[in-house]
């Protein structure tokens, strides 16, 4: 789960990482009141989970209350690379002397946390040359030690007078990284002010979805209205769904098999509309929930249901599909591929049923060809 800047800064403040004073707002009036409370100048910042806010006009400086309100009005509702701005963060403007970059990353390849520091902050870190970024892996069983901070600071060649406070900030960011079950904690820019204070001017925090059960405060930060409506519906129904933009709806049992199904449909000349894993589910209500999510996408012209029966038997799945079709009205053709345990009986159950939109297949490749042809007919009709 990706947090918005102001949510990340809340976590920073809780862990003793210095951040500028700020207030959250969703209307120009609220922004005006917040700015007056904070004192001028202030910065009005669009809260969206995407980079490049500044260039898109989503960050503006305001010298007085009228300007704060005008900027807020312009930014709320603004489209930034496909995302509509719904919330803003009003923050005391900082006197920036120097911009650095600091981060703690979950390095899955090394199976260790990776701490990074660079004297080249304020720009896209991917644009900073490798040799300008100091990197160090931390043993998760030992934690972040004072020498880690010193080594990073000396290797990144930051200003000598801020080596201690920058090291201290990295230590706190590491504590937060562990305490919040984060996959990423990034500060860009990490600034030194005119009076030599070290401050986190931005905050990018990603928290492990698997850990939300023990991070209730973070879990509550989720804003369903900022998510894709279909993905939101899927979450509410406990279905693993990712929306794509094609016309062939795809569901199956098991993440790997469904990923593979998307690829095979694309190889057959179709475009997948989504990824949907129904898990081991064969029960009618699970299939109904999955089909309802999938069919809420109006672009879907045909559906491929790819089942490999293991412990879940294909005849159970076939009965589940028929029961599901009694409960919901499906207008588009469905190709069901049943292979594995009791597959012949499963296909016979579907063939015997009086359901004209159902087609059955034995192999994945055959099913992919069928569903792509049916989707084309649907699109032409």
């Amino acid at each position, binding site marked *: 789960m990706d947090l918005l800047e102001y949510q990340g800064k809340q976590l920073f403040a809780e862990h003793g990482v210095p951040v500028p004073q700020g207030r959250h707002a969703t209307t120009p009036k609220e922004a005006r009141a917040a700015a007056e409370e904070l004192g001028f100048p202030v910065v009005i910042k669009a809260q969206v989970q995407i980079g490049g806010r500044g260039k898109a006009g989503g960050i503006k400086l305001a010298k007085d209350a009228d300007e704060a309100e005008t900027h807020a009005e312009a930014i709320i509702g603004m489209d930034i690379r496909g995302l509509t701005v719904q919330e803003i963060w009003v923050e005391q403007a900082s006197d920036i002397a120097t911009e650095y970059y600091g981060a703690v990353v*979950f390095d*899955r*390849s090394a*199976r*260790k*946390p990776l701490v990074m520091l660079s004297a080249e902050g304020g720009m896209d870190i*991917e644009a900073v040359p490798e040799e300008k970024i100091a990197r160090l892996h931390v*043993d*998760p*069983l030992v934690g972040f030690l004072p020498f880690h901070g010193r080594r990073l600071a000396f290797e990144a060649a930051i200003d000598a007078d801020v080596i201690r406070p920058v090291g201290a900030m990295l230590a706190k960011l590491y504590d937060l990284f*562990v305490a919040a*079950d984060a*996959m990423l904690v990034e500060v860009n820019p990490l600034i030194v002010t005119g009076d030599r204070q070290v401050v986190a001017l931005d905050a990018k925090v990603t928290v*492990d*979805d*698997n*850990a939300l*059960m*023990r991070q209730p405060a973070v879990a509550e930060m989720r804003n369903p209205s900022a998510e894709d409506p279909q993905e939101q519906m899927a979450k509410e129904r406990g279905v*693993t769904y*990712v929306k*794509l933009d094609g016309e062939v709806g795809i569901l*199956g*049992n*098991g*993440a*790997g*098999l*469904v*990923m*593979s199904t*998307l*690829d*095979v*449909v*694309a*190889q057959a000349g179709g475009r*997948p509309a989504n*990824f949907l*894993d129904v898990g081991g589910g064969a029960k009618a209500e699970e299939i109904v929930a999955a089909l309802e999510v999938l069919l809420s996408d109006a672009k879907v012209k045909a559906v491929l249901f790819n089942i*490999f*029966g*293991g*412990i879940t038997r294909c005849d159970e799945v076939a009965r589940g599909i028929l029961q599901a079709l009694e409960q919901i009205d499906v207008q588009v053709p469905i190709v069901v591929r049943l*292979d*594995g*345990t009791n597959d012949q009986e499963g296909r016979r159950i579907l063939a015997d049923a009086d359901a004209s939109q159902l087609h059955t297949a034995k*192999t*994945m*490749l055959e099913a992919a060809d069928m569903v792509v042809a049916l989707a084309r007919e649907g699109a032409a009709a």
Partner: protein
Amino acid sequence: MAILVDTGTRLVVQGLTGREGSFHGLRNREYGTELVAGVTPGKGGQDVEGVPIFDTVHAAVQATGANTSMVFVPPPFAADAIFESADAGIETIICITEGIPAHDMLRVYNHLLGTSSRLIGPNCPGVLSPGKANVGIIPAHFFSAGGVGLVSRSGTLTYQIGNELAQLGVGNSTIVGIGGDPVVGSSFIDVIALFEQDPETELIVMVGEIGGDEEERTAEYIAGNVTKPVVAYIAGFEAPPGKRMGHAGAIISGSSGTAQAKAEALEAKKIPVGRNPTEAARLAAERVGART
């Protein structure tokens, strides 16, 4: 021979009194796996269909000589269960649980480096050596004993390819699901190294997917260390960046972890990559056929 589980496996199931744990634990016993104990704190002295339950893994090991554990414990407590197994000296720990926090797995992984325990999973279907032992949730009836070692990040995709191999008349030495999480106990490299040493394994099939750089690293490893033929399949060419495709570890971050990059890295080392599961199975069957 086979790897990881075989006729010498003495299995203890952590969570045997739970619904899933008892269902799969007893299925494994039915297959022929020697299921010697279950562990559920507070239920020591009871039994599940004749299998004695102990309060701790230590007690189970002392009483039964268990050398392999299967973890069927809910995500918040699963890491603790793995630590307990390692502390009790279990050689092979197979964790089925899906949804363990990634930071828990960082600590587990780094701790196990200093022990003699080997972890398979989590978020995996387990390990099956056809005709010898099954530890996990793999539907064993498709598979017969043979010369192909199969290692995969995905469950159902493993069954799919295993079944296609079976239809081509090719059996397996061992099928290993290494799991779909960002941090798992054993990597492709760890398992392929075991297959390389296993006299029964003639050819290795690896089934990868988007996310991380394991497949790329494995390609390098195979080129330098593996004499047996390897065939690969990679899922997720159509996956968009930044979206988790079901498995916690199946995510393209920025431009890294794509299926394209993985397939190219493997092909650059002369490892054939099937375009779909059917083609991967056919490539493997042809190569096994050529050797016999």
